[in-house]
């Protein structure tokens, strides 16, 4: 029979092993993607248009589209997600109605993105008649991201101890005043971290966009200031192929001779941007936390 001490040692070993496997896979994955793609990343790759038939195309528009879609999505997601999270954390009573609403959010959060994409196509592209467009894509990604944002906001608020709520209430603050002036500032580091991390998820999403934002991008002119011109980068009604959709597209339907290199380069850029999101979420969160604690 094993002694408790040995079991303890065994379990510790297994846990360390699991953590190592995870870290190992990540390092291996990042290593491969960056090693294969890095050689293809150059200034001209980042700043030139993609090509349809010939080799040597870049990813300028795709990169722009990804960021623009992300910004629009976050503009829709953050207010709804924040308000929803505040409702669940601070206002919702513990009853059947609340648990029904909470199940809805959880279910929505667990829907496969391709299903959300199909729904977006039906509603925004077809019923509303917006076609394949940035707006359709951004709203679809909002559906995809909003439940996560609600959950992140709720968790961030719930992490604040109750004595803060009581302290504020005892000073004659209403519930909303407490939320606005005590809880949200205190939860800000966690909220921001959650926001940036979910931004990474949105930035890398492809399945939900294939049927909503499309596989093509008009020839954009970055000096075109007329918002609804077809070649305006800001036009929300134009089609927009994002970076991750581009990776999928060149690999499956693309006919360019250097598809493999383009995909590798684009993947490396995508991974780097998401890595940057994650790192900045940690660093900014920690910086604000330190600012609050005043040390």
């Amino acid at each position: 029979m094993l002694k408790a001490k040995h079991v303890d040692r065994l379990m510790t070993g297994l846990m360390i092993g699991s953590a190592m496997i995870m870290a190992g896979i990540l390092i291996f994955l990042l290593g491969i993607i960056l090693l294969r793609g890095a050689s293809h990343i150059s200034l001209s790759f980042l700043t030139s248009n993609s090509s349809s038939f010939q080799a040597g195309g870049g990813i300028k528009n795709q990169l722009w589209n990804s960021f623009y879609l992300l910004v629009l999505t976050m503009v829709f997601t953050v207010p709804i997600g924040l308000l929803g999270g505040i409702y669940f954390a601070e206002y919702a009573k513990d009853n059947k109605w609340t648990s029904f609403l909470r199940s809805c959010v959880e279910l929505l959060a667990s829907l496969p993105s391709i299903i959300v994409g199909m729904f977006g196509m039906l509603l925004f592209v077809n019923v509303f008649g917006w076609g394949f467009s940035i707006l359709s894509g951004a709203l679809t990604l909002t559906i995809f991201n909003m439940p996560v944002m609600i959950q992140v906001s709720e968790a961030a608020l719930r992490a604040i101890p109750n004595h803060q709520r009581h302290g504020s209430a005892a000073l004659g603050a209403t519930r909303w005043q407490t939320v606005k002036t005590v809880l949200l500032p205190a939860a800000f580091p966690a909220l921001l971290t959650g926001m940036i991390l979910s931004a990474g998820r949105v930035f890398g999403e492809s399945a939900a966009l294939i049927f909503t934002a499309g596989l093509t991008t008009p020839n954009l002119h970055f000096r075109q200031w007329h918002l609804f011109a077809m070649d305006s980068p800001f036009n929300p009604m134009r089609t927009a192929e994002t970076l991750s959709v581009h990776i999928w597209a060149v690999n499956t339907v693309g006919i360019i001779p250097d598809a493999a290199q383009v995909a590798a380069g684009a993947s490396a850029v995508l991974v780097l941007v998401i890595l940057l999101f994650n790192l900045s979420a940690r660093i900014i969160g920690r910086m604000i936390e330190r600012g609050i604690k005043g040390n």
Partner: protein
Amino acid sequence: MLTLEKPKASVTPIKKINPVFQVKDLNIYYGDTLAVKDVSVQFPERAITALIGPSGCGKSTFLRTFNRMNDLIPEARATGEVIYQEWNILDPRLDVVALRKEIGMLFQKPNPFPKSIYENVVHGLKCAGVKKKAVLDEAVEISLKQADLWDETRDRLTKSALSLSGGQQQRLCLARALALKPKVLLLDEPTSALDPISTAKIEELLLELMKEMTIIIVTHNMQQAARIADYTAFFFQGRLEEYGATAALFEAPKVERTKQYLSGQFG
């Protein structure tokens, strides 16, 4: 558990007082549990009243009735009357936000907000709609002086309140409550998380403040009650067992259970 006979409480009437609170037949429930049972008592103005008793005797629950903090506990409900000025505090139509501006509270654990010292002090005022910077500045200085924290913080008002020591944080919470110029101050074991020096400082401040306001303090520490309270109420299992002038209650308790508690036979 059923009892046929209600144990006798000894409530010595306090002469010549202006009662700030008149409690009549107060019962407080948590769900089905009765936490405070049939309490009727009057608390005098501009004095320190201590609420003592073993853990779980209902003294904190009782204290939180006066500024309706029990509202924040979903399953808590109260019956009876608590008369303050011409209002019944338990009336659901009462404006609790206005009530809490007149009746301030200090908690067991210092709970400053993770903001600057200045912002902590003006929180209540800002929530009340005060916007003028001169008014806020003045309130900060006066309240910090009242809490004897001005000298330590005047040069670092914009620093985070969390950078203060535990004792300083509790005095900041006191200043924050005083900024609203309350008529009553409720304290829920305000020094149980503090060292003896910080405790002495808080007690000193309370003795100063009682000249201007009514203070009701829940304390675990019988010496503290003996040191600062004019009147003491002893709670046991949700009932008010004995209430009277502190010296009389400590020297010659009338109820057997009070005697046992004060002599340390349980607690």
